[in-house]
């Protein structure tokens, strides 16, 4: 197997419009969660979200913008950033040997929502002509390939909350097997439409408002946690064959060392200790590392009652007595749950945390839960934590549990 380097990062997120901005906000503990400003906010039980300050017109000519759902806009901007960061030039057959791998849970839900509003809300039959093109899940990946002339595999993964871990992992596998030289891999999500937010609310997985401080509403691993908060954005990474990257003297953000999958079959939403532990073990096996080598973890840590206790038990199952000494960061309290883009953003934050020798905080952890008794780096980041190897976990509705293993650059 060939080694895989991360040589470029692009981020459009609630925490900021680049990897550096997002990381600095996370390090400083500045939550991007807030009250929804949309006209439909009064119809939400808890109008909370982590939204991106983003104006598509600043990035795209108008005729093109009319064809791009918000999810595609995020993905295109993040991809261009990542390619610029990688300063990569493709030659010979390398356009064919570069793939695009994108995870998204809800695709172009804003466009679909708008189309159905025309049909059902306005009782008009005049659906706009581009709804199919804007709504389809593979639009972001397709636009990235068109923009950059990348003719290798163009694949979209939709496995709910692990979509972008799967996209990154599958891209990693193709480069590791020598099939591809490079890949743009990551995820994008723009789920803050009225229909989507009501659907998530109906499932009763979203957090209640913290009346004292709405930005503190998502409280992973805290006894008073009440659920997740939806976020939006994209994170894209340039993955590159290690030898190619070192030969050209590229800056290496870190090494993607392995990827584990395990499917929970017990229930469509309920997580299991055994299923989460099996996914972490699969990542360790894939990366060829022992549990003892893992220095830190970016948890799935949604802030739901169901996940956080189970995840704690799964970490104990994998790491045994050492579990309590591993710093565990649940960054969703900062950036919200970006669904299909969340794994990619969390992987980026993990890479940056290793680069800067810091363990990112799990915010709003005010009340100890006897079920959640590990080291979650509560409330403030911890400087001087030099992790060499990290796991980034994503456990999904539908059961596709995916865990990525990364090493710090040498």
């Amino acid at each position: 197997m060939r080694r895989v380097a991360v040589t470029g990062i692009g981020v459009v997120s609630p925490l900021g419009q680049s990897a550096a901005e997002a990381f600095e906000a996370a390090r400083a503990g500045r939550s991007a969660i807030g009250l929804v400003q949309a006209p439909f906010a009064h119809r939400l039980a808890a109008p909370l979200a982590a939204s991106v300050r983003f104006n598509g017109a600043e990035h795209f000519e108008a005729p093109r913008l009319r064809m791009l759902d918000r999810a595609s806009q995020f993905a295109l901007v993040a991809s261009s950033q990542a390619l610029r960061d990688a300063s990569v030039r493709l030659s010979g057959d390398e356009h064919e040997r570069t793939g695009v791998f994108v995870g998204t849970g809800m695709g172009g839900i804003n466009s679909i929502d708008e189309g159905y509003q025309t049909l059902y809300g306005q009782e008009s039959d005049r659906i706009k002509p581009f709804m199919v093109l804007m709504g389809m899940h593979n639009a972001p990946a397709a636009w990235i390939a068109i923009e950059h002339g990348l003719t290798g595999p163009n694949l979209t993964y939709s496995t709910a909350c692990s979509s972008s871990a799967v996209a990154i992992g599958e891209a990693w596998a193709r480069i590791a097997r020598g099939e591809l030289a490079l890949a743009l891999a990551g995820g994008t999500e723009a789920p803050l439409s009225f229909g989507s937010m009501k659907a998530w609310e109906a499932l009763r997985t979203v957090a209640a408002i913290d009346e004292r401080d709405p930005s503190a509403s998502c409280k992973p691993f805290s006894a008073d946690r009440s659920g997740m908060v939806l976020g939006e954005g994209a994170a894209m990474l340039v993955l590159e064959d290690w030898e190619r990257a070192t030969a050209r003297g590229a800056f290496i953000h870190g090494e993607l060392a392995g990827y584990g999958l395990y499917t929970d079959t017990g229930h469509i939403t309920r997580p299991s200790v055994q299923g989460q532990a099996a996914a972490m073990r699969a990542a360790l096996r894939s990366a060829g590392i022992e549990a003892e080598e893992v220095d830190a973890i970016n948890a799935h840590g949604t802030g739901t009652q169901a996940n956080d206790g189970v995840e704690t038990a799964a970490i104990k199952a994998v790491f045994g007595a050492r579990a309590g000494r591993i710093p565990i960061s649940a960054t969703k309290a900062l950036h919200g749950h970006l669904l299909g883009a969340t794994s990619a953003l969390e992987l980026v934050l993990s890479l940056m945390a290793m680069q800067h020798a810091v363990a990112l905080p799990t915010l709003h952890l005010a009340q100890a839960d006897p079920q959640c008794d590990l080291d979650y780096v509560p409330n403030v980041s911890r400087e001087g934590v030099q992790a060499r190897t990290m796991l980034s976990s994503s456990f999904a509705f539908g059961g596709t549990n995916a865990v990525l293993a990364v090493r710090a650059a040498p």
Partner: protein
Amino acid sequence: MTTTFDRLCAILARDYPLQPAQLTPDAPLESLGIDSLGVAELLFNVEDAFGIALPAQPVALQTVGDVARFIDSLIAARAGAAAGQAQGQTGGQEETPDAPAQPLAALAPVPAGAAALP
């Protein structure tokens, strides 16, 4: 009096957004960033604005002027059909649109939007 061309330009200026100086009758749509798929969307909005229905058969529209003439021909056809219905026979020459309608036959039928679709 507002001509079809003016009304069309108002839609283009609003949706794309374009400067009045760019909107001349012989300006190629491609040069304004509107490709065959973009024309399909433009015509959708034109249908609403002018209260006309496009024929199922796509037509080649290269310039802003082409679109204006195409709209006029459809308005004329609609007026003709209405007049014909009223008189029980074909007619409608009395209601001429703002600009002289180029015969539809001069616009070669091609699968404009369809060419870009699978």
